């Protein structure tokens, strides 16, 4: 990984750029799905993949500017290093995914299936929430569908009917049919208010218990989980949602990385947030989610 390369074609977290033939087992394969949100007042998720890639560099800056790619957390004195072996492969963006259609959705699901068939982990950069649905479609075609962990302010249709999903961060009115479907599927809903009222530690405990109970996890990270006041770059507006600090605490406090079957990051619309906080929060959260797959501890 070069510390100085700053190519016009930005890759997520300085991943290798490659094609479907370059898969190595256990790699995380990044696919951008720049589909725009149908929200009439606040479009802009088509720019999500690029925004996420750019922001990932800002988040990694301390690593990239260190000769050994090692940083010290001065809070804990803990040292971490970016893994030298190539664990990320960016295969670029899916072209012609606007307007979204069943065909596009099937294409995304098929690509997910192919990545999984190579024993790699798909990481989809959305795009709006439908990208997460396509990820789940692709993952559910195999024999042993993974459990669904959804970080979002709203219940996701595709995940609601999966087996015993966990929704984190629900806030605002939810369609009763989805709510009931989720309950019928044995799902659990940890609302934003639960987290505000009971504290982040309690939330981490219950999410960690869910992670422990499942072998493999599909993780959907919808940036609308964040409070609109903190991160405005989303099509929908979530008032009273999680703070970026709360989201980060969850993702770095729960040992998800080794159980990931697939990831989708959706609803990042950079142009709606002139402060750039939303894509920054998304990139920071995503890197925390990838955790030990991307970073390794270094003895002090």
């Amino acid at each position, binding site marked *: 990984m070069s510390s100085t390369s700053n190519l016009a074609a930005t890759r997520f977290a300085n991943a290798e750029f490659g094609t479907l033939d370059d898969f190595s087992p256990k790699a995380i394969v990044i696919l951008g799905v720049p589909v725009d949100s149908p929200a009439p007042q606040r479009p802009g998720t088509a720019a999500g993949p690029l925004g996420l890639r750019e922001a990932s560099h800002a988040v990694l800056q301390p690593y990239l500017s260190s000769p050994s790619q090692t940083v010290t957390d001065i809070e804990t004195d803990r040292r971490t290093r970016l893994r030298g072996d190539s664990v990320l492969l960016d295969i670029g963006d899916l072209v012609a995914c606007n307007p979204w259609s069943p065909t596009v959705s099937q294409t995304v699901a098929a690509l997910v299936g192919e990545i999984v068939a190579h024993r790699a982990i798909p990481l989809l950069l959305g795009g709006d929430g439908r990208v997460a649905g396509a990820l789940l479609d692709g993952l559910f075609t195999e024999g042993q569908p993974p459990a669904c962990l959804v970080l979002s302010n709203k219940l996701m249709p595709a995940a609601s009917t999966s087996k015993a999903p966990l929704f984190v961060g629900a806030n605002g009115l939810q369609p009763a049919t989805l709510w009931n479907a989720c309950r019928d599927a044995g799902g659990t809903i940890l609302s934003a208010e639960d987290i505000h009222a009971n504290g982040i530690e309690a939330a981490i405990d219950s999410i960690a218990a869910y992670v422990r109970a499942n072998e493999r996890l599909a993780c959907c990270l919808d940036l609308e989980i964040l409070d609109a*006041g903190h991160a405005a770059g989303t099509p929908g507006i979530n008032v009273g949602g999680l703070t970026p600090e709360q989201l980060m605490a969850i993702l770095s406090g729960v040992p998800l990385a080794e159980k990931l079957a697939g990831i989708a990051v959706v609803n990042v619309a950079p142009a709606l947030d002139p*402060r750039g906080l939303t894509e920054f929060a998304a990139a920071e959260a995503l890197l925390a989610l990838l955790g030990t797959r991307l970073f390794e501890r270094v003895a002090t």
Partner: protein
Amino acid sequence: MTDTPLSEPTALLRSPGLTLFDGPAGDPATLAPGSFGVVGMPSDWTQSSRLGSRMGPRALRRATSEWVASLRIQNEDAWVDPQTTSAWRLRTDDWLLDCGDAHIDATSVERTTESIALMTEAVRLRDAIPIALGGDHYNSYPACLGYSRAFEQRQPGKRFGYIQIDGHLDFADKLGAWGTHNHATNGRRNSELPNIARENMVWIGITGWVDGGELEQIEGMGGKIFSSGDVHRLGATAVAEQALAHAMRGCDHLYLSIDIDAMDAGFLPGTGSIVHSGITPHQYCAILDVLAAAPIDGLDIAELAPSLDPSGRSERIAAHMLLRVLWNHILQPA
């Protein structure tokens, strides 16, 4: 896309223009008792700082209608609130009537004041509840003035309680060259209304350094101030509960004035006079959730200046504030 029943072509149409929560528009004279009457106050001529709140009423109407549309488009019968796990549906009766904007005269505070007061008075005289949309916070005074006049006619000899959520006291007698009637004096002018319970006046969210003289006057008359620090220290819910208890002493009616600028400007920059209160959207909502159960029969929301927030979130957060305080009217249990 949603399937709209073509057998009812009128379902494809809506009346032109924007209304609050996409409700019907009409004359205050047609208001049903117990409903809400919306009065727009698109004036920022009495704002001494950053301009733009004259676009507030339109932005509030746009953002609240956007919220209603986002529910309607999904063709659901009922909705569950994850916070309480209770189920709700949108009210379908005419709980609200948007009466349009009061006439604003940039060159005459007196005429603007009377024009707004006339509308809120007319709304309240129909036994309806005025929701006055600012505009800068000065417009709270004419809105409350009309409310006070109607109150005197409907409940002669009685007095009403008052809560102002705000980053600032707005209790100056005069503001320099701006004189006595502007966005720094509305709290003071309201306190001079004959039937307000002055000793019940409460401020929530005051931030930073305030004028010591104004502080002494407020506390001298028995009023109460909860600072933003109090919100952090005691909790938003506890502050709102204590504020409500203070405001309702010996009163059955409450006037609520919401200045959106009590929220930290980092989260809500689209307002004229910003403060860094540290009050988050979640805390602000928690305050409003308590007040939603109060006997509010007069309400204003002020200082939304959408053009000052390029992210567009300020108007939507402000719309959400209205939703939270009017929750039990917009929605009904499913």
